[in-house]
Each structure stands twice: as structure tokens, then as C-alpha cells.
């Protein structure tokens, strides 16, 4: 046996968190991919002939990056939050709390696993939906940056919700009353330029809007606001959510009484 290594501890927790969703991939990967495809089929069919969000871009082509990013965000949130609440309720969180993990290691492993799940689901959605409309990848680095940062924000938010919630019901409330409305009203299904001025202004207060808009810029090199503004907002949101999650973990809030 060799001496204790913090790097091995981190890698083990990350591997375990990834295996956790991989072992039930039908539920954690296949199901959200199918949901996104259904959205594309229904909304694409109904609105294809009526809406042109960006000049020269069909509605279905416009919708695909939005659905991919929505899947990335929702699944990143689901991964960290469900892992934490499940282990809290089952009592198995003790196996994470007894070893010498720092709050940095715990945060890093949970959020990295959330990013991996988000990106894997996003790739799955893209791999299927891409056949429904001509596509472009105008600036792939923006796609990657916004996918990773957005999933990082949602992984952090999932940790906060998982730490705060004492039961599944509270977590479901957080997911259905905060995450779902914020993602749905962020421009996944429409360009905010098509909204009345008041709702445009409201949309600009929603950090999810910048995640979707920046991500979509990577596909079309067109967006509602500058990708640099989106990057700044998303980076700030990551700093805030990660900061809160790490502060809660460092204090042991609801974890170490």
C-alpha cells in the first residue's frame, strides 16, 4: 500500500460519480435525449413555416442548439443534485464525509461529473437532432466553452439544491419552479428579439439566456447579444454559484451539522 494521495481520492470520487449515472444510462442519458428529440419533432413541425429567428437560419436549425444546451444544463443540475440528495436520504453520504476530502475536492468531483453527464447528454441530443436540419459549426470553441461553463454553473446549483433539500419533494420544487422556468424562458425555443420590449428586458436578467445565446453563437456566428457579454455573465454566474456551493461545503451546512 502506498501513502495517501489527494489526487487518487479526487479521481476515485469523480469515477464513482460518473459510474453512478453510467450504470443507469437508460434513465440518465437515453431518456433526456428522447425528450429533446420529441421537443424538436413537435415544435419544429409546428413552427418551421412560421418563424425565422435568425436571417437565413430555419427554425428547426435554430432550435437544435437550444435543445442541446437545455439538455446539457438540466442534466448537469440533475446529476449533482440527485447524487447528493440520494446519498443524504440513503445515509451513504457518510462514506464521503468520513474520508479526508477537502471541500475543494468534493466540489470539484461532483461538478466535474455533472459537466461530463451534461456534455454526454448534449452530444447525444446533437447526434440525433442534427439529421433534422442543415447545420453549421461556425465557432466550435464557443460551443465548448459555453457547454462546460453552463454545465459547471448547473452542477454547482445542483450541489446547492442538494445540500439545502432534506427530501426529494424539496429538490423537485427547486427543479420545477426555478430551473425549468428559467431554462424554458431563456430563448431555447425563440429569439428574444421577437419578444415585446418588456419581456426582452426581463430575459436579459436571466443568466440562462446568456448560456443559450452564447452557445448558439458557436453554431451560427449570430446571437441576440455579443458572445463576450454572454461569456462575462456566464463566468460571473459560475463564480457566484461555485462560491456559494463551496462556502456551504466548507461550513458543513446540513452536511456536518
Amino acid at each position, binding site marked *: *500500500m*502506498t*501513502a*495517501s*494521495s*489527494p*489526487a*487518487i*481520492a479526487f*479521481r*476515485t*470520487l469523480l*469515477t*464513482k460519480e460518473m*459510474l*453512478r449515472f453510467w*450504470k*443507469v444510462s437508460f434513465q440518465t442519458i437515453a431518456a433526456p435525449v428522447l425528450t429533446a428529440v420529441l421537443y424538436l419533432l413537435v415544435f419544429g413541425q409546428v413552427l418551421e413555416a412560421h418563424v425565422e429567428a435568425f436571417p437565413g437560419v430555419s427554425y428547426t436549425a435554430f432550435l437544435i442548439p437550444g435543445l442541446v444546451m437545455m439538455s446539457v444544463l438540466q442534466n448537469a443540475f440533475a446529476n449533482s443534485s440527485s447524487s447528493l440528495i440520494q*446519498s443524504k436520504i*440513503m*445515509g*451513504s453520504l*457518510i*462514506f*464521503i*464525509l*468520513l*474520508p*479526508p*476530502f*477537502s471541500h475543494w475536492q468534493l466540489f470539484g468531483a461532483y461538478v466535474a461529473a455533472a459537466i461530463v453527464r451534461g456534455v454526454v447528454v448534449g452530444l447525444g441530443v446533437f447526434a440525433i437532432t442534427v439529421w433534422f436540419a442543415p447545420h453549421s459549426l461556425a465557432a466550435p470553441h464557443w460551443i465548448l466553452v459555453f457547454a462546460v461553463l453552463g454545465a459547471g454553473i448547473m452542477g454547482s446549483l445542483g450541489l446547492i439544491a442538494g445540500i439545502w433539500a432534506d427530501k426529494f419533494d424539496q429538490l423537485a420544487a427547486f427543479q420545477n419552479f426555478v430551473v425549468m422556468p428559467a431554462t424554458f424562458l431563456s430563448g431555447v425555443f425563440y429569439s428574444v428579439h421577437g419578444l415585446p420590449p418588456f419581456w426582452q428586458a426581463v430575459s436579459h436578467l436571466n443568466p440562462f439566456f446568456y448560456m443559450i445565446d452564447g452557445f448558439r453563437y458557436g453554431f451560427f456566428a449570430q446571437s441576440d447579444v455579443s458572445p463576450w457579454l454572454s461569456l462575462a455573465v456566464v463566468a460571473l454566474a459560475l463564480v457566484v454559484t461555485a462560491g456559494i456551493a463551496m462556502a456551504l461545503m466548507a461550513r*458543513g451546512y446540513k452536511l*456536518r*451539522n
Partner: protein
Amino acid sequence: MIAIQVSQVTKRYGSLSALAGIDLSIAEGEFFGLLGPNGAGKTTLISIVAGLVRATSGRVAVMGHDVVADFRAARLALGVVPQELAFDPFFTVRETLQFQSGYFGLRNNDDWIDEVLANLGLTAKADSNMRTLSGGMKRRVLVAQALVHKPPVIVLDEPTAGVDVELRQTLWAFIRRLNREGHTIVLTTHYLEEAQALCQRIAMLKSGRVVALDSTRALLAGLAGLQMTLRVSGELPAFVLAHRIEERDGSVLLRLAHPADVARVITECMGAGCLIEDIEVGHADLEDVFLQLMSDRRDPELSEPESRAAA
């Protein structure tokens, strides 16, 4: 070297005082018992030692490492078998142990994992999913998880609650071996005969305070003499009443200093016209010590420190 040093530890939950100033010092290599009724604070104290709960005040060190300031070294030195039967339903027994070993930053630990599996009778179940195991088998895995990083200090929080005789014997044989090899063992249990048989030293907790701390032998010697359980019909004579400890189910429990007192009790009862229906005489055991300490009606918050209570 002191394995576990607990200094003036208090824990409050709002207005409730779970621990009211605990001082304990457990030497390296000891087999130490932590006893007390439900709600006495045993699990809270163990949780503070393990870093699962933060003390309101006071300090705890494991193998000289503060559990808050130097938590990495303290947790590496400690293995805890928790009271609650928890498991991760996604993984097999071997995966569970490999993950736990990795969490402690260890690699190439499979030889020791195999040895722990064999010693706890888990080898045949190594590749079974945790969900499929019986309660007793899950309990064995909990013990294995606590030992996977070969900690010098091992805390077992009621490890034999609701498990069969075979597991108890397997478990105690293994834990005794670890203790002989130098591991410090701290045990909480409601089975006092286990504590009496295994522990060299015992602390008894009541309402968040240590009410007794001594070697098992000295605690038993404190109740030297005989215990007599007596069931009679009629009024008990004054001599018998003077030796009464408690009454249970129509019987009285007496403590007698000398074997000669047994004959006197019988003579006095017969002289008072009592009919003796049942009689049983034996030596005091740890359960008697426990009952005597726990039935002490003085409020520990108000009482002076007892002579036997060690700080």
C-alpha cells in the same frame, strides 16, 4: 501515544445540551467501551471524533491530530463503523471497498481488501450488488469499509445491533486480532456482556456527561458482593428493605455485602412470616453497574462530581 483525546467537548442543538463537557483520553492499543442509554450522547461524541458533527466547544484529537484543524491526518487515522445500515445501491461489494479505499487516497490496496473480505466472511459475496445482500452481510460490508485504509484507531458504533451470533463471533474474532496487532478499538454497544468480555476500560455516559470511567475490573469491583432477587408474599422486614436496590415485576433486587447475609435475609423473612416464592443469588455484572449508575436519580447537571467519575 494517546489515540483519542477529548477535551472539554460540548455540543448544543438549540437549547438541548447533547454533550455537557466531555473529557476522555483513550490510549493507543486500548479496547475501550463507551456505554450509556439511548440519548446519552455516545453517537454524538463519536460523530465529533469522526468529523461528522462539529463540537460547539472543546477539542478532539485522533493520534495527536486535531479533527478540525488537521482533519486529513485525523481522518486517515480513524475507521468508523456507523450505526445506521447505509449502502450505495449502484455497486458491488468489491467496488464499494475499492471506492472507499480510493477515497482515502490509497492505490494498490487489493491484497488488504481481499484479506478484509476473507476475515469477515465476504469473499463469496465480493461480486454481488449491495442491494442483494442480507442485513447481516451489509453490516459486514460496513465493517470492511471502516477497515479498508488500515486505520490505527477503529470506532464501532453498535456494530452488533440486530445481527446473528455467527457474525458477532466472526466480527469479534477479527476485531480482537486487530487489537492484538496494536489497533485501538472503541466500541459502543447495548450488549453489556460484550463490553464486559471485550473492553479493558469503560466510560459510561448519561445525559451528555461521563458518569463513570474506569477499568472494567474496577467498575465491577465497585459493586463487590452479591445480588439477590427475591419474590415473597407478605411484608418485607426492615433488614431486607435496607438492602433493596429496586423492585421489578413483583420481585425485589437486593445487594448484599457478605455471603452470610443470604442466610440472614431468609431467616428474617421467615421470622416476619413472609413466604419465599422464588430466590436467585449471583455476582454483580456490568449490567448491574450500568443499571445502578443510570438509575441514580440525581440530576447530573446539579450533582457534585462523583468520586468515581474521572475527568
